[in-house]
């Protein structure tokens, strides 16, 4: 093991927050390239395809942003809880239940003016997601049941509950498949092609819709909450040093619950994108792993909105570009890209500190030399 001791106060912020993640990302991509090579394809070509698929044409780019939207929500969800040192692994289940909230509000209140339905549906998504996170939060704060365990269990419970509802309670009875009826068209969120239609540009279908702006707003919301309000301050205090928080009269119980509920609510907003924006109905399994990938997004983005945005975008590129690659390169399957994601999580999450000391000490020495020279 290396024993490099770095004086943290001397490390410039851009080294720890930009250079180190970039190095980790590059390593992950190099190893991925190796896999592509072993699979018998040209890694350079694959990169070209990824870039083309996600940026090369407007519809592809719209897809990239659509994926980015979902990753922003789930990434933020994980980050908020993490500031209170809670590992909310339950984004998946909270998003699922959040979707139920969107649907119930939208279908039952569709007689109201459209913008109000949207607002209420967003509220419903947040509320349902938060409620699903509340139970593990309560168990953690009052009974000491670890949220990692309970939120994982709650993902399974959410999944079973939704299957039950979709099969027996809210299924579209004209169909055999486990999904609900469609929402009335007038309350769908405007899609990207509708916007460009107004501007006179005609493009083909993409799932990108108005929710993207909600995601951007959420980034601001989280930044403001965590660093500019006393709630965020208290959450962070509990997360960093619970003893000290108690000394200052800050209740750990209350803050665990607040942090988890906001976290769950943000995950729930994924339902707005998927249901009000894209499919307009609840389909079984619609969160499709976004909740889990959000953990990687948050880790890569160092739990800060400014980091989560590019991290979510990167995963958006991988999702969209990846599907382009699997389409063009028969040797590369969809699962290959799951492996690539895994490598990114491995290098930027689990192995985050692998090269950090070396990189930081390198820069500290170089900068010192400049100062002395």
């Amino acid at each position: 093991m290396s024993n490099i001791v770095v004086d943290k106060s001397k490390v410039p912020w851009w080294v720890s927050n930009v250079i180190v993640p970039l190095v980790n990302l590059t390593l992950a991509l190099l190893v991925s390239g190796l896999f592509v090579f072993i699979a018998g394809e040209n890694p350079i070509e694959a990169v070209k395809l990824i870039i083309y698929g996600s940026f090369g044409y407007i519809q592809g780019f719209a897809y990239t942003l659509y994926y980015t939207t979902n990753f922003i929500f789930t990434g933020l969800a994980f980050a908020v809880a993490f500031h209170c040192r809670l590992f909310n692994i339950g984004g998946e289940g909270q998003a699922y239940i959040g979707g139920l909230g969107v649907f119930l509000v939208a279908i039952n209140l569709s007689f109201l003016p459209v913008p109000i339905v949207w607002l209420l549906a967003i509220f419903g998504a947040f509320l349902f997601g938060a409620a699903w996170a509340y139970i593990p939060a309560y168990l953690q704060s009052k009974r000491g049941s670890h949220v990692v365990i309970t939120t994982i269990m709650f993902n399974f419970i959410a999944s079973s509950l939704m299957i039950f509802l979709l099969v027996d309670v809210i299924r579209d009875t004209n169909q055999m498949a486990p999904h609900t009826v469609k929402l009335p068209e007038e309350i769908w969120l405007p899609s990207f092609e509708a916007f460009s239609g107004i501007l006179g540009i005609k493009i083909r279908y993409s799932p990108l819709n108005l929710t993207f702006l909600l995601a951007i707003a959420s980034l601001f919301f989280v930044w403001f909450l965590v660093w500019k309000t006393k709630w965020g301050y208290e959450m962070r205090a509990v997360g960093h040093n619970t003893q000290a928080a108690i000394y200052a009269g800050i209740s750990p119980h209350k803050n665990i619950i607040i942090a988890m509920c906001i976290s769950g609510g943000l995950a729930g907003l994924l339902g707005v994108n998927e249901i009000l924006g894209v499919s307009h109905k609840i389909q079984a399994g619609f969160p499709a792993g976004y909740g889990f990938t959000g953990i990687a997004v948050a880790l890569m983005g160092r739990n800060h909105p400014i980091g989560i945005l590019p991290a979510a975008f990167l995963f958006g590129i991988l999702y969209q570009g990846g599907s382009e690659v699997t389409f063009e390169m028969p040797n590369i399957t969809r699962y290959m890209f799951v492996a690539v994601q895994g490598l990114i999580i491995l290098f930027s999450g689990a192995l985050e500190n692998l090269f950090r000391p070396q990189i930081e000490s390198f820069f500290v020495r170089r900068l010192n030399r400049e100062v002395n020279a």
Partner: protein
Amino acid sequence: MVSPILELTDINKSFGHVQANKKINLKINKGTIHGIIGENGAGKSTLMSIVFGLYQANSGSIKINGKEINLRSPRDSIINGIGMVHQHFMLVENFTVLENIILGFEGETVFGEKLQKAKEDLEKLCKTYNFNIDLDATISDLSVGFRQRVEILKSLYRGAEILILDEPTGVLTPQEVDELFKILRSLKDEGKTIVLITHKLIEIMDLTSEVSVMRQGEMVGHTKTEDTSKEQLAEMMVGRSVLLRVDKKEIKKGETIFKVNNLSVKDDLDVTRVKDVNLEICSGEILGIAGVTGNGQTELLEALSGIRKVESGSIELFGEKISDQNNFLNPRMLKEKGLAHVPEDRQRMGLIGDFKAYENLIFGYHDQEPYSKSAILNNKEITEYSNKVMQEYDVRPNSPNLITSNFSGGNQQKIILSRELNENPKVLLVGQPTRGVDIGAIEFIHQRLIDMRDKGAAILLASVELDEILSLSDRIIVMFDGKIVGEKENKNVTDRELGLLMAGVA
């Protein structure tokens, strides 16, 4: 003459700039109970950790039975027949007694013969020394006294000839102490050598045949126990170091504003740590609590500041009951009522190391105006305030945006102090205000506390530094074993008197 079983020559040990042991010489004779006594931080535990191989001395030699040995790890010490029972037991809670004792010395991969053999050996040992332990009991089911016996048994099983006990009675009830002493005496009779580290004079007089006194990292005397007295030992232990006298005006005592009635408090392990304490503090007065660490001061301060639950009794502020066993005000409500608290352990409690300095400067007051309005932090105000107080308290470096853990201990303490004093509290609870703080900052901190007193605050000061208590307090109480064992006006009181009280003698 027979060479001593353990001989230390010129042992030096320092941690960073702090020299914990200075040229220590010590001879321990076989078959004796040898006491090592001294105040907190005198270097007793460090010295014994060196003997047990936990630390390596910077210089000096260790001889066992006249033969020089090199102790690099506890394993070396165990091989050389040295066993140690720590203050905090090193036992696996969900293992049985037997499993704990053989841990690391199993001798076989699949338990069978050797385990059986170990069990038989241990049963014999238990009988010899009258231990009365069920080897198949799970540690978590045992009381503290029994756990200690398991530790002793463990050392004996591993062939200890010299047994070091670090403050063994700190966690025991009086009955358990009697039992322990019986065991120790029977060990001595069987020819084992025992080193007893303690700050309690009674135990020394009761149990040991020889005693060594340490003070501030130095060995200040060796004597046969029968040739000395408690008074003499207390004087050696406390010493007559130079006092940091603070200029203090004549006391202008106001009315009683803080009152504690028959207070009892338990710690996290459900042990009663504060026993039936009564005290009163007037405005304009500093009441000092002297005492060796672990005699209930921590729990008392925590209960008074609303962090710890009151077991029985009550606390009054301005004649209004603020806490009893049924309900208590949380620290924030107490702050609003004018009670501030500088906690003993700044890293664990007083600060958040990962926060920036300005965030710690408002910690606990963050939801008050002008620092925040309707839940939104007012960064402009906070920054202005931070710049101002950091200058006023001479916090170095003077940068509110620096992460707090990068400040030195003294400057961290100044951050806490400025925060707690800034609101001009009516009652101030202060624990170990100058622990690990450099001399310059000590004077500064002392002056601030005196200023607060002159402004009419009622101050409760708990410190293990006797000098600090003597130079700041108007009145002194001494805590021992959770009880107040003495109260003195700080006029003609001597170190020795206090030393005796602190050691539970007078």
